[in-house]
């Protein structure tokens, strides 16, 4: 191979998100807004699963809330004819993530499963990723947080407790994905099958608005649902190539 074509190959690879030619899995979520009731069960589940600190009233007033998934509410119209719509918003695991390019130490990067990961140990806290993320889903640890007794008893041992000066965000419950992969590996090195893994928010959604799975498996539920004609991605015009698909609410 000539030097030039080798260089061009390297360059093309370099331009790929996370430098991968192909992902092993391509974890994807769909959110059916027609089914979402805005109950915020997902928010609570995520808080419990991922050791998200409870920052308290004062900090929330300062605008330092921490919730990896939030339910955004938008009002339309004036009071008697007001209409409320919800949209759950978490890290979209963009395949062309703006947040990844900017981190000077590479603390946020794309892994082989198509996930946008955050390495807490490596983070130096420039907060540039939070600026670059158009979805505003990155949350910063302004302090070392504490859990009032007895809440510290319910911390999830599978998940790191983050210290001050570190950025965090939705991981698609990577600890559950890892576990499912481990189990699958022990079980004859098979691939993780549809339904083997469910993030906390998906598991807790009473109306089954959230669906999670591997996009590469064309049989999977998520593959069907992301090809629903109602599908769209938030801020798709920014070419972030996100992995969360929303199914539009159809007004009756």
């Amino acid at each position, binding site marked *: 191979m000539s030097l030039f074509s080798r260089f061009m190959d390297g360059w093309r690879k370099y331009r790929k998100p996370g430098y991968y030619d192909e992902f092993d899995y391509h974890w994807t979520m769909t959110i059916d807004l027609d089914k979402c009731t805005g109950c915020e069960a997902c928010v609570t589940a995520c808080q419990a699963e991922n050791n998200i600190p409870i920052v308290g009233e004062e*900090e929330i007033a*300062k*605008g*330092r*809330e921490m919730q990896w998934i*939030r339910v*955004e*509410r*938008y009002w339309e119209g004036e009071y008697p004819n007001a209409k409320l719509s919800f949209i759950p*918003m978490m890290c979209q695991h963009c395949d062309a993530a*703006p947040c990844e*390019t*900017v*981190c*000077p*130490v*590479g603390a946020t990067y794309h892994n082989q499963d198509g996930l946008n990961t955050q390495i807490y140990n*490596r*983070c*130096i*806290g*420039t*907060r*540039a990723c*939070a*600026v*670059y993320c*158009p*979805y*505003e889903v*990155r*949350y*910063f*640890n*302004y*302090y*070392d947080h504490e859990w009032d007794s007895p809440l510290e008893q319910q911390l999830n041992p599978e998940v790191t407790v983050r210290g*001050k*000066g*570190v*950025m965090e965000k939705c991981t698609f419950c990577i600890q559950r994905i890892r576990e499912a992969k481990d189990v699958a590996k022990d079980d004859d090195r098979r691939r993780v099958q549809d339904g083997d893994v469910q993030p906390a928010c998906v598991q807790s959604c009473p109306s089954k608005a959230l669906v999670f799975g591997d996009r590469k498996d064309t049989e999977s539920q998520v593959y069907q649902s992301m090809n629903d004609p109602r599908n769209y991605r*938030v*801020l798709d015009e*920014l070419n972030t190539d996100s992995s969360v698909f929303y199914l539009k609410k159809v007004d009756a």
Partner: protein
Amino acid sequence: MHRPMTTETFKLGYNDIHDDVIRSIVKTGPKYYIALATAGGTTLLCFFFPWFYQLYYGIGAAGMNHPGVWGTYLASFIFWIGLSHSGTLLSCVLHLTNSSWRKAMYRSAEAMTLFSLVVAATYVMVHVGRPWFIHWAVPYPNQMELWPNFRSPLMFDVMAIATYITGSTIFIYMGSIPDFAAVRDRTSGWRNTMYTLLSLGWRGTDKEWHRLHWAYTFLAVLIIPLAVSVHSIVSWDFAMSIVPSLHQTIFAPYFVVGAIYSGTAGIVTVMFVLRKSMGFEQYITKLHFDNLGKLLLVLSLIWTYINGVELFTAWYSGTSEEYEALNYKLFGYYSWLYWEMIIFCAVLPMLMFSTRFRTSFVPMLILSIAINIGMYTERFLIIATSLSRQYLPDAWGTYVPSPVEISIMLGSFALFTTLFLVFVKIFPSVSMYEVKETMATPKMEPAAPAAGSPA
């Protein structure tokens, strides 16, 4: 650009210059100690103490929130980088264009560059959440086998600033070698030892002068693109994001012009202070203020133009998020700051069209401070207004600096002053040899004229 120094300025002899400048180094009055103690004390109290508090408790001590994750720390960082600009840059440009009026002032201008950069670098540490790991942003071979992310504009920043600090340190040091030698020859004791080391055995032979000039010009040519690139790269931290109103191609020139603008204003301020406090009335004259005033005026016009372009492109984009950002900037929560900036940086500088204004010292001082206040506001607004209004309305918010931030901001000026005060006692703050170049060669003592020489 050749402009002879007014002869009235230099009714001085070579010796007077030596005496004046060396006096400023060796003779230290109580006033100086008071100033140093005040500046040093303020630095400790207002800069380091709140910073340590913040290190201990976390960045939460500052007012940053969600979505305003960047705040005055970054604004101050840009401000100091900006201030650093004109020093060396101006000195280089004027050196290359052979402007003799540069000679009395450039040493202090270059020092300003250096210390602003030091303060800016300190601000990076104040800004990040875990400064104790800041070395990870520097590419060095390590056990973890991890490199920084070379795609990151922040990483470019680290490189650019490190290069710029190195470059301007060498530049100011090299330009001072003959002066160190001059001081060496007139001091004794520990000072003599220090200047002997600093002057690298300078003897003032023709060869040495020749090499110095060559190297100096070479560095001057090298530093100009460096200075431009540094601030372009700082602007990319913002422009390479997709935040509405930050994602603009005009940002690099905008930042560079802004930097030179605020830096030049800073030089006017520093020169006024030096002139008054060190008794340099004879070296820093109306001429300098006049010329700097003209430069400031041009810069202010360019700056105003770029601001207009920024508004226009936002409007012309026709997208709802840019409209919202524009509307917020002009009429939102921070709008009073915006209009303050316009008055200080675009309207008031128009006064400099008048020569009388440019040649009066106190009004120029006031204006130069006003410009820098305006420029600080600009940096703050770039961050605060844009982050407050991004794509998803649910995540809109406002950010207000906390007392810790304000204290650190004020403290950084004290830090800068402290460094500068130390500087004037070590470096000859007016370049003696270059001022001498502008003077008529003194007549030799009419000792016994050699036989046959023309009378």
